[in-house]
């Protein structure tokens, strides 16, 4: 299958003079794959995602995203690590943000937003202001917002970080179903190794200072059982070895 995300010797930093955060990242993500990115706090996972989303310029190297232009869809959907809702829009309007400017009717927009809210179990909260939500509810609105645009590439930065076990399981199942049914390419940052092994078919470990890709493993450990636990344990050791922040 074709690569939809191609990073070639990319190095990334903040400001003009500070040392780079990530160096020499070469990465090619195939269409329809589910890639988890793990690594210690502050290693550069969010930064990498922002570069892929085109929100931050790489210092050097090539970043290519092969986007399909489907009408009424955005090629890339992003779930931020903080929920990042527009405080002046009610929940349902926040979810519609990415749909605005697409050639669809207002009724369609509303319907898609409501569907996305249903997906994250927030049907009853459409008319609330963001400040009236709990932390986990806010995060779920952020997920719904990315889902509503029905993107080919879904970039998720710790999307389930603030969710309880049950909600999280539900949403993991939904995400897996969507991945299976629609063949979206998913880049998924998580701090939870179980989650990574549970969901992804490929796991990328970032580590070191400045950070680079230290491991890039195909994950077919299944969803449970001894192989699963082995895989998690192996990753844990891997990260611990390259843990320097």
């Amino acid at each position, binding site marked *: 299958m074709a690569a939809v995300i191609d990073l070639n010797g990319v190095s990334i930093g903040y400001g003009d003079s500070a040392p780079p955060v990530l160096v020499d990242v070469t990465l090619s993500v195939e269409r329809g794959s589910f890639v988890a990115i793990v690594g210690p706090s502050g290693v550069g996972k969010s930064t990498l995602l922002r570069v892929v989303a085109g929100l931050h310029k790489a210092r050097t190297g090539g970043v290519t995203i092969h986007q399909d232009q489907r009408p009424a869809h955005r090629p890339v959907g992003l779930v931020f690590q903080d929920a990042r809702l527009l*405080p002046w829009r009610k929940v349902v309007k926040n979810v519609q943000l990415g749909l605005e*400017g697409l050639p669809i009717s207002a009724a369609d927009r509303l319907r898609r937003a409501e569907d996305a809210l249903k997906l994250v179990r927030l049907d009853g909260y459409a008319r609330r202001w963001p400040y009236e939500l709990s932390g986990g509810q806010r995060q779920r609105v952020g997920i719904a917002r990315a889902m509503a*645009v029905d993107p080919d590439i879904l970039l998720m930065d710790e999307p389930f970080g603030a969710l309880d076990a049950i909600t999280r399981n539900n949403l993991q199942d939904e995400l897996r179903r969507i991945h299976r049914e629609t063949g979206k390419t998913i880049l998924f940052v998580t701090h939870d190794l179980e989650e990574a092994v549970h969901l992804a078919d490929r796991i990328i470990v970032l580590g070191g200072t400045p950070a680079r890709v230290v491991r890039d493993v195909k994950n077919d450990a299944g969803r449970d059982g001894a192989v699963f636990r082995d895989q998690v344990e192996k990753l844990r050791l891997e990260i611990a070895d390259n843990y320097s922040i």
Partner: protein
Amino acid sequence: MNTRTSLSLSALGVVAFLLGWEAVARSGVVPAGLLPSPSAVPTAFLAEVQRGIWQKMVVASLSHYAVGLALGTFLGVAFGTAAALWRVWDAFQSWVVRMLRPIPAIAWIPFAIIWFGVSEGAASFLIALTVFWINYYASYSAVRGVDKDLIELGHAFGQGGLIPRLFKIILPGALPGILSGLRAGLGQGWMTVVAAELFGISGLGMRMMEASGLLATNIVVLYMVTIALLYGVSDFLFMQVQARVLSWQR
């Protein structure tokens, strides 16, 4: 605190203010003829209304004010936002703006006369000018202060183009600051009405100056109270609208 309590507190404040004023006026601390007591206002009001002057002046000033305010606000917000958005434009105009900014309304009068003649337009121009500056700076700083994270969010969701970014992220995000500028302009506009009517354009300001020249202070005060009421009502309404518009703020 509910609306009832707050309204009665306001009434209390106004009554205290009027009583204090009346006391000062009667005490003779202030030379007679310079400060009439507020109780002189109703009589003056009736007289002016009967002569038909009050209504005419109010309508005239309101129209200068409305035009000037609308124009000044719109242009001020537009230019302030533009300067805050484009660094090149900002750098280009910053010192020109610095040169024009401190020029007082009075010094603009000759230009107003040249451009508009002795006409309503000239008065509106002068009012627009003061209102413009206030809105310019308020918008500039409000737009500069918009959360960069939200702008990034806009980019991520296809709202990074100028128009959607402006109308979906920047202006709503800067709205509290812009509205505060609008509100300041609301008052500053009235403050300028008087200066703007110094040269032959009829309205409250002209009548006030005329009365002041003839030391008819009760008429001066009548028109000051008139301005105060007009402003008070518009400011009150503005605050109601603002509370609606900013209901997303806790």
